[in-house]
């Protein structure tokens, strides 16, 4: 275990930015803190870097408490959102800054800087002024600067958010490849779910200072722990629903808004909600299909709009009181067609007990997704 957070809390006045956050990161892992803005993810990163001191709880590095260790002594490399390059120093001097601060001998500094710059494809840029570089190049200088000190842990605070879309996608592929090649443990902060999916071995979803769930991208998508994670990670239809029938093995029959009775499998057998309890049903767009006329248990609606996206086509279907998103092939119904929606046979619908019918903090159906 290279890094461990043990019930770490940080308050700013009356706001609890990070609330009893516990987290453990393995050596060599790429972990992302994902959450909406203001969820405390950057504060968590700054607590690890040492720029903030926890009010409660401990930050452990290889089992040692970091409480009394200054950021300087921690030696974690950090890449900042706006890069924080020193404007009065050129590219070489920026990358060399950390090494010189440690008093490395001159030849070693030159070698390491050169190596570090070539890793990010910036050989020969040493003499340039940092202001003369493009955004993408500045970002790479910031990365090279952090890597030059050969940190055991690399902290990245939304480093890609100032790049344009195409460059952002390219850079994150390169970033993951580089981090994996060097075998560095990395902790990345972002609010972009797609970015988190592309980069991470594991993702920690945060909301209002708390950790909601940590797991691989697949786990988060397939088995979200709660309605917030369900709505924040991936596209989701969240329907108000009520349990009709529960069996001993944890499978349920759920009555959705609009009156359809759909099966839900795989909820925790020990904690099966009682019949009659209300909650929210998660159906991913690709788990819905257009059914035939004779099929039972369908939600009836009208296709409001369809958008062609290559591999799939997204349909917005208006059912009474709701709009649902369906992902299907381009051969589906036209705009204005009356359709019947059913879960696919292999669908794994999830039910989250709790009042409040309509999804509140998880975003409206179809939101929070990979648009």
């Amino acid at each position: 275990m290279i890094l461990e957070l043990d019930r770490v809390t940080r308050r700013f006045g009356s706001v609890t930015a990070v609330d009893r956050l516990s987290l453990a990161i393995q050596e060599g892992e790429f972990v992302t803190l994902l959450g909406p803005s203001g969820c405390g993810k950057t504060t968590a990163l700054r607590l690890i870097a040492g720029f903030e001191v926890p009010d409660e709880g401990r930050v452990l590095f290889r089992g040692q408490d970091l409480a009394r260790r200054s950021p300087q002594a921690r030696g974690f490399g950090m890449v900042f959102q706006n890069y924080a390059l020193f404007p009065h120093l050129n590219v070489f001097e920026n990358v060399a800054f950390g090494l010189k601060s440690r008093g490395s001998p001159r030849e070693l500094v030159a070698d390491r800087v050169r190596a570090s710059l070539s890793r990010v494809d910036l050989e020969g840029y040493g003499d340039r002024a940092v202001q003369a570089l493009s955004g993408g190049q500045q970002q790479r200088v910031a990365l090279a600067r952090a890597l030059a000190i050969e940190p055991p842990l690399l902290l990245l605070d939304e480093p890609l958010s100032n790049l344009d879309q195409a460059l952002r996608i390219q850079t994150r592929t390169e970033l993951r490849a580089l981090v994996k090649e060097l075998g560095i443990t990395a902790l990345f902060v972002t609010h972009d779910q797609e970015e988190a999916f592309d980069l991470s071995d594991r993702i920690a979803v945060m909301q209002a200072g708390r950790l909601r769930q940590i797991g691989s991208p697949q786990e988060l998508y397939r088995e979200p722990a709660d309605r917030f994670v369900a709505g924040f990670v991936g596209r989701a239809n969240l329907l108000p629903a009520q349990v009709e029938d529960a069996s001993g093995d944890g499978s349920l029959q759920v009555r959705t808004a609009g009156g359809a009775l759909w099966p839900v499998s795989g909820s925790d057998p020990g904690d099966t909600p009682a019949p009659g309890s209300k909650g929210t049903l998660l159906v991913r767009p690709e788990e819905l299909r257009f059914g035939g006329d004779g099929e039972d248990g369908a939600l009836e609606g009208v296709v409001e709009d369809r958008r062609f996206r290559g591999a799939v086509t997204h349909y917005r279907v208006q059912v009474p009181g709701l709009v649902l998103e369906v992902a299907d092939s381009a051969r589906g119904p036209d705009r204005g067609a009356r359709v019947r929606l059913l879960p696919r046979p292999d669908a794994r619908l999830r039910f989250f007990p709790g009042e409040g019918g309509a999804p509140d903090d998880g975003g409206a159906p179809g939101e929070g997704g990979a648009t």
Partner: protein
Amino acid sequence: MSRKTSLWLLLPVFGLLVWLVLYPHLFVLGDSLWIDGALSLDGYRTFFTTRAELEALWGSVWISLGSVFLSALIGIPLAFLFTRFDFPGRTVFGALAALPVLLPPLVGVIAFLFLYGESGIFTRVVQAVLGLERPPWRLVGGWAILLVHAYSMYVYFYLFTAAGLARLDGAATEAAESLGASRWRIFWRVTLPMLSPSLMAASVLVFMTSMASFSAPYIFGGGFRVLTTQIFNSKMSGELTMAMVETVVLASASLLFLWILQRFERNREFAAVGKGVSAPRREIRSRLARILVPALGVGGVFVLLLPHLTLVLVSFVPEGAWTIQILPTRYTLDNYRALFSSPQLWTPVLNSLQMATLATAANLVFCFVVAYLLVRGRFRGKGSLLTLTMLPWALPGTVIAIALATTFSAHEPWFGRVLLVGSFWILPLAYFIRNIPLVAQAAVASFRQYDPELDEAAHSLGASWFTTMRRVAAPLVLPGLMAGGLLAWVAALGEFVSSILLYTHRSRPISIEILSQLRAFDFGAAAALGVVLAALMTVVFALGGRYVRGGLAGGRGVAATSGNPPPS
């Protein structure tokens, strides 16, 4: 703006600048070379062979360099103290430390006199404590001037450093920390280099203000010579050619040093980009520092403001009630009562209000047009328009006054000369000219922030030219322009340097009356006038503060870019 409109606005603006700014100075240059109806370098030959004149030149230069050094020594640590550490009273004392920037230098100088002068309160305390027969020092000569300068000009370093620190990207410091740099190394290698533009700007400002400084050398100089007082003496004793030569030398020296200093200034902005978190204020951890830091800050500010407190105290002392005692013995409202009832004291206040308002109104209109031309106009020769606009900034008030006094002393319309000397209009004219750069800079800054696309957006939404001006341009440009106007008005209200060379008895401003009360040893009346002046300025700033702050907050701010040396 079309080329044609540009030209129609440009001609009168350019003409006025050439006539009022450039021509008088060329006139002085001509007069310095034109002796007894023939071209001659005799004036300069005399200047550069007379010991006293060279002393004055050297005095001006070293006092200015020394002032930069000492002001930095006070202002920079103070700024760090108040921006980087958190302690009770930080906000209040931090604001108080900037207060002297509002006060006219003459008022600061007499306040200093009451406290540290030969018969000042502090001097007498030291004398009494040590049991000396004579005052322990006489506040006279180069060192006295230097001290007064440091005392009043630290504010520039304080404000510029604080502004620089606020703009500084906190992430840069954190990046350095995460790379393992020690605090010491971060300060020297990151913070200071990134602050260098601010420090350079403050240095230029202090240097130019010191070169132009008149009140401090005039009152504390004694036998010590600087160029400004030398010019004044030559002019008063009727050695006109010498006065012209000295004026040319002072102007050239100022311009030369300005040029040198600005070549040093690397034109780089190290401001935060994007979501910059400004450096967090540190809570003080160690117990010793927890006492020491606030004590230094609060104590420092108290010492710096002591002269001004003294001024208020002395303003309540009736005539003759303070002779040999340490502290005055009686306090009454007599001085204020006299001020509002005696025309002798009240007329100058009205004069100053009237003349400052006139000059500022002219500044607002004129500089709005100039800024419009500089930012939006399309014509060749923008550079020379800018130079003409900013020229009065680089020229000491004494130089401008001499130029006006020389040029507008005769009625020769064909040579562009009108008789203004001895009339009411000469002072408002001088104030107007001296404040052109300040107001123009403020207006230019506002126009720069104002994206022309906003006009286009308004037009595309169907707004007429007039509606666009009223609903878009005016709200966006006015705050900055008004901020500049306020500063100009305040500067004109307390103006002394040009006034002393140009005033007539009937239209004498407050500063001149303060001086004559001081000469008559009526310290109370002089102090009361000073307090009224300071109070007027404070009230105006309090009322107009919204504008000033709005104007300053937008972009890089008026104070940070313009830096008009106040009349000194």
